[in-house]
């Protein structure tokens, strides 16, 4: 019998990747392509959905060819995607309405302020489990409807479709204008602000609060079930799963039991804790979200601590400042000094996410003296990720009443040994990384394989998990406390930078 595989598509913030996995959950081949980041104005971040689709059309055959595999040997395809990024497109032509508005985009801040002051705003956290913030999709849909003449009428007639990236890709894979299925999964739907977290259905109250027509919304489905069969790219292959990337990582780390927690380090960092089949409300700035839903089983919920900027700070160090040629070189620079020299960087590039949720905060570098070199800055860049993780872990411990005893870390930044040591040091718990750092892709593959019976059950997946590395804390308690205190003072200095009525770039609108 010829060997069969599962294909995962990770449609991320900076690139799209196809990874083929075998039955042991081992990576067989990888193909990847970056897409362009459009920054048309300060605070605006856009992607071209057509470019992303074309990238997928290109890399999918590459991943198959690398492994010498045909589409017939692919048991299922699963999708993990950047969450909250909003795509609108024409149902008839398949052409997007402008570019996708990315999760980091803050153009809706004035709209969100206005909505927040309006009557009935309290239903947003009550029903969706999320704060009313620019981070999520609904304000972006509303903004586009408000700023595109005639679009609302077309949306009401069902001629214009909304989706996050997984919806866009599934619709195109399953035929596009020619019979494409318009679906989303519960994890992605839970990030729109339009879904009731308990009923897992679009909520009329929320739809009318944001004034979003129901006709443009995809059907909400489970995270693992066959949505349809691909007619393009992987003809004949079943599309068996979709999850938001962070939920996919939770799944890939096999955090299937309540209390199990993982942190994925990429552009941003996201700590998710499985809380079982009941949603837990946070009193400490964490988000209540859907973790996953397997077929007809009850949904599993999660608490999430979202950090907007971690790897993105290293990218800025590389592209914005030009101090390194490649991201991993940050470790080389940072290792050349013993400490940060008294310098702290708080990367509140588009405000601060968990646990602060301060949209008006902006980034700072404090503690600058003539002693500081680029090496100290590199160290401060890595430490910023460590301390931001600490703040979220503290909030998670308070909300859950448990104290984290070990952190399961994954994502591209876990190849940075110094960073992982810093995280272990500032959390004062061991940090471990699983054998597959690409847990986002692995989670999408696991979910898709489960949907089609390629893997039998969750226990089988658990047995695939192995520890690849472990870092133990080695920092003096007094030093840790003193550094944390400095970090918190630095964070306070970012607050209130953007004044009410100002645009994201700090200037008053004309």
């Amino acid at each position, binding site marked *: 019998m010829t060997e069969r595989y599962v294909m995962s598509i990770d449609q991320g913030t900076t690139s799209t990747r196809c990874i083929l996995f075998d039955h*042991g*959950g*081992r*990576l*067989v081949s*990888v193909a990847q392509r970056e897409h362009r980041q459009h920054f048309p104005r300060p605070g605006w971040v856009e992607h071209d959905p057509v470019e992303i689709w074309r990238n997928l059309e290109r890399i999918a055959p590459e991943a198959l060819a690398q492994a010498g595999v045909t589409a017939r040997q692919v048991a299922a395809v699963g999708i993990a995607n950047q969450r909250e990024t909003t795509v609108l497109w024409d149902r008839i032509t398949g052409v997007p309405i402008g570019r996708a508005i990315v999760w980091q985009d803050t153009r809706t801040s004035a709209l969100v302020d206005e909505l927040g002051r309006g009557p009935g705003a309290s239903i947003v956290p009550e029903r969706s489990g999320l704060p009313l913030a620019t981070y999520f999709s609904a304000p972006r849909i509303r903004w586009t409807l408000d700023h595109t003449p005639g679009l609302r009428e077309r949306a009401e007639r069902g001629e214009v479709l909304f989706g996050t990236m997984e919806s866009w890709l599934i619709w195109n894979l399953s035929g596009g204008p020619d019979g494409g299925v318009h679906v989303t999964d519960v994890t992605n739907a839970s990030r729109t602000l339009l879904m009731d977290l308990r009923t897992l259905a679009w909520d009329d109250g929320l739809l009318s609060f944001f004034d979003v027509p129901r006709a443009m919304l995809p059907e909400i489905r489970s995270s693992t079930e066959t949505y349809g069969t691909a007619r393009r790219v992987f003809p004949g292959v079943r599309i068996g799963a979709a999850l938001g990337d962070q939920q996919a990582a939770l799944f890939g780390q096999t955090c299937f039991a309540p209390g199990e927690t993982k942190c994925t380090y990429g552009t941003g960092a996201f700590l998710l804790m499985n809380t079982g089949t009941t949603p837990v409300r946070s009193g400490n700035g964490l988000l209540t979200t859907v973790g996953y839903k397997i077929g007809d089983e009850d949904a599993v919920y999660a608490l999430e601590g979202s950090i907007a900027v971690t790897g993105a700070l290293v990218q800025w160090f590389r592209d914005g400042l030009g101090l390194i*040629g*490649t*991201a*991993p*070189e*940050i*470790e*080389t620079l940072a290792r050349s000094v013993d400490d940060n020299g008294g310098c702290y960087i708080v990367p509140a590039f588009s405000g601060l996410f968990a646990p602060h949720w301060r949209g008006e905060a902006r980034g700072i570098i404090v503690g600058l003296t003539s002693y500081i070199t680029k090496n100290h800055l590199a160290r401060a860049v890595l430490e910023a990720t460590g301390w931001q993780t600490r703040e979220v872990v503290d909030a998670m411990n308070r909300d859950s009443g448990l104290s984290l005893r070990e952190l399961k870390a994954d994502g*591209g930044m*876990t*190849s*940075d*040994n110094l960073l992982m040591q810093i995280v272990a040091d500032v959390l004062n718990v061991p940090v471990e990384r699983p*054998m*597959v*750092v*690409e847990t986002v892709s692995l989670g999408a593959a696991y979910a898709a394989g489960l949907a089609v019976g390629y893997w039998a059950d969750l226990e089988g997946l658990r047995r695939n998990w*192995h*520890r*690849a*590395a*472990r*870092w133990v804390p080695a920092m003096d308690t007094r030093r840790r406390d003193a550094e944390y205190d400095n970090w918190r003072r630095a964070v306070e200095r970012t607050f209130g930078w953007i004044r009410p009525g100002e645009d994201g770039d700090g200037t008053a609108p004309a």
Partner: protein
Amino acid sequence: MPGPVQSIERAAAILRLLAASPGRLGAGEIAGSLGLARGTAHGILRTLELVGFVERDEATGKYQLGAALLHLGTSYLDVNELRSRAINWADALASRSGEAVRIGTLLDGRVLVVHHVFRPDDSLQAMDVGTLLPLHATALGKVLLAHDAHAAASVRDAVLEPYCRRTVTDHKELGRALARVRDNGWASEVEELSIGEAAVAAPIRGHGGLVVGAIGVSGAVERVCDARRVPVPALVAYVRDAARAVSRDLGGTRW
């Protein structure tokens, strides 16, 4: 003896031209100055860009000398960059082989461990990234020695310290072992560093085939080797596949 290679002469001329120029030059200007067809100049420039010897400005499309030229004398590939590019394949190798994986580079006559993946049995293991290992008594070291004339020469003048009864301490024998490594494309070590342990390693290559490191597995001799104390062919194949996959990602496509 074969004659001079024309494209290398032309590449050298392009580098000299860029070095002498106060500002960036366009492909057309370079082709004009050297009397080359535009397509020829373009092909050479693209290759030089690939290896980092020239850089192309995004906005203007013009060329200047690349940063890699300035660092020719120092390390070719940042070790943290190497780890980041290799991590997926090192994980897959550990998972397939069931053994611990290490990646090593040369540092002052020793093997520097730049990456370590635990043996996938979830037993307690300690990270040994940053550890230095002897060149002549490890599979990683033999791979590095076999492909670096300078390191091999420095070892020739040194005493080969015995770690076990089977450690290769004779220079001639080591020379023959290194020749086999070059012929076979992989190296092994059976109870040469510590009793009961064996290892297999293969070279990681970058652009042009330059060896930038070695990747290998190590573990109990009864798992790594067969009854004749020869490394199990399947294990050797896993190691070589992983080395090739990393090399492909680094631009060493032919290997």
